[in-house]
C-alpha cells in the first residue's frame, strides 16, 4: 500500500527522494523532499543513469517538466526557482539543436558546450549537498552526548547570550508591543497589580513551577499582559523565586527556590 502524498519527512538514510509513477488514472506519487531545482536535477540524472558530464538534455528536460506538472496537478506550490531552472533547461535544449557555426567548426576549443555552466553548478552544488550529509551525521552523533545539569552557580539562568540578531528581534518585539499598547483603548475591568501578584504567588506556591508562556497566554488584553509581566518581575524580586530558561528562547519558568 502506498502512502498518500508524503512530504518533508526527511532522513538521509531511510528517506530517499523518489517519484513513483504518475498515470492520470492512478496518480501515486511520493514526492521526495527536494531541496531545490539542482537537487531535483541531480536526482533525475541519477534516475536516468546519465553521465553528469554528458547530460542527455532533451530527456532530462522532459522528465523535469513532467515533475513540475505533477506538482502543479497536486496543487503543490511550485517555487519560482524551479520554474527558472525549467526555462534554463529549455534554453540549453534549444541551443543544442542549433547547428554549429561552420566557421567555428574545426576549432573545437572555441566551441562552448551550452551545458557547461549547468554542469559546473551541479558539481559545485553536489559538494555542498554531501557536506550537508556530513553535518547531518555529526549532529546525530552529537545528540548522543549530554552535558551536565544545572548546578548552584547557574542560578541566574534567566540570562541569555545575545547576538546582534537578538538585538534586532528584541527591538522589533518591543516596537510591536508598543504599537499594540497604543491601539488598546477599550477600557474594561482590569485586574490590579496587587491582585495579579497575589494570584500568581498563590498559583506558584501550589504548583511549584509556573510557565510564563501559559500565564501570559491567559491574559485577555495587552494591559493585563503588561500587569502580569510587572507582577512576575515583582515576584522574582521580592519572593524567593527563580526565573529559569532551560533553552535559549525556550519557555521561561517561574520556580520556587
Amino acid at each position, binding site marked *: 500500500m502506498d502512502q498518500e502524498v508524503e512530504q518533508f519527512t526527511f532522513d538521509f538514510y531511510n528517506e530517499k527522494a523518489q517519484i513513483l509513477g504518475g498515470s492520470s488514472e492512478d496518480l501515486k506519487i511520493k514526492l521526495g523532499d527536494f531541496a531545490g531545482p539542482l537537487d531535483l536535477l541531480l536526482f533525475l540524472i541519477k534516475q536516468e543513469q546519465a553521465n553528469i558530464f554528458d547530460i542527455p538534455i532533451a530527456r532530462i528536460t522532459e522528465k523535469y517538466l513532467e515533475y513540475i506538472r505533477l506538482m502543479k496537478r497536486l496543487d503543490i506550490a511550485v517555487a519560482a526557482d524551479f520554474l527558472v531552472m525549467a526555462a534554463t533547461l529549455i534554453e540549453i535544449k534549444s541551443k543544442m539543436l542549433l547547428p554549429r557555426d561552420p566557421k567555428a567548426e574545426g576549432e573545437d576549443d572555441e566551441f562552448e558546450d551550452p551545458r557547461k555552466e549547468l554542469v559546473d553548478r551541479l558539481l559545485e552544488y553536489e559538494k555542498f549537498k554531501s557536506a550537508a550529509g556530513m553535518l547531518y551525521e555529526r549532529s546525530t552523533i552529537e545528540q548522543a552526548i549530554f552535558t551536565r545539569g544545572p548546578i548552584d552557580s547557574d542560578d541566574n539562568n534567566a540570562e541569555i547570550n545575545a547576538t546582534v540578531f537578538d538585538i534586532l528581534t528584541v527591538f522589533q518585539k518591543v516596537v510591536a*508591543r508598543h504599537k499594540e499598547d497604543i491601539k488598546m483603548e477599550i477600557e474594561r475591568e482590569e485586574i490590579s497589580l496587587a491582585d495579579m501578584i497575589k494570584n500568581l504567588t498563590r498559583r506558584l506556591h501550589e504548583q511549584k513551577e509556573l510557565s510564563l508562556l501559559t500565564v501570559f497566554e491567559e491574559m485577555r488584553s495587552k494591559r493585563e499582559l503588561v500587569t502580569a509581566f510587572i507582577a512576575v518581575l515583582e515576584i522574582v524580586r521580592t519572593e524567593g523565586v527563580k526565573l529559569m530558561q532551560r533553552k535559549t528562547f525556550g519557555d521561561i519558568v517561574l520556580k520556587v527556590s
Partner: protein
Amino acid sequence: METEESEKIHRSPVELMAIVEALIFVAEEPVTSKLLGEVLEEEKGAIDAAVEQLQQDYEARDAGLQIREIAGGWQMATRTELHEDVRKFLKTRPSAKLSLASLETLAVIAYKQPVTVPEILEIRGVQSASAIKTLLDKRLIIARGRKEAVGRPMMYGTSKDFLLQFGLKDLSELPSIEDFEDLVT
C-alpha cells in the same frame, strides 16, 4: 510479600557505575537511588552499592569532584577544599550575558540613539533604570550629553565596547529591519 523480585541485573558493576555517574551528572536536581533504580530497572541495593563505590573511587583518586548525598538524593559537586579556585574562576568568566530587560533596553538604545530615559520608558512601557545601570556598568552604553528639552534629560548611546562585543565595525553594520524583512515575517 508482593514485591516481585524481578532479576534484571544485565549490567556489570562497572557498567552500572558508569551509567549512574552519567545520570547524576546530567540530573537537574539531586537524584534518589529509587529513581535511578526505576529508570535503570535495577535493585535499589545495586544502585546504592554503585554510588558508594563511585564515592570511594572519587576519593581514592583525589578527584576534583565528589558525589554527595543531599536533600535525600545524590548530587555531583566540586570538592569543598577547592572552593577558592572555583570561586575565582567563576568570577573571571567573561560575562557577555544580559537579562532580557537589559537586552531590550540595549536594543532600544542601539536603534534610537541618542535617546533619553523617558523615551526608553515610552517605547518599552516599563521603567528601565536598573537595566540602564547594568548597561553602563558593562560599558555597553555611554552618556551622550543632555537633550535640550524640559529637565534636560541625559541622552544615551552605544559605546565602542558595544561594537566590539557584538562584532560590529560601526553602527551602520547593525542589521536593519529591511535586512530581515524576508526572513522575519
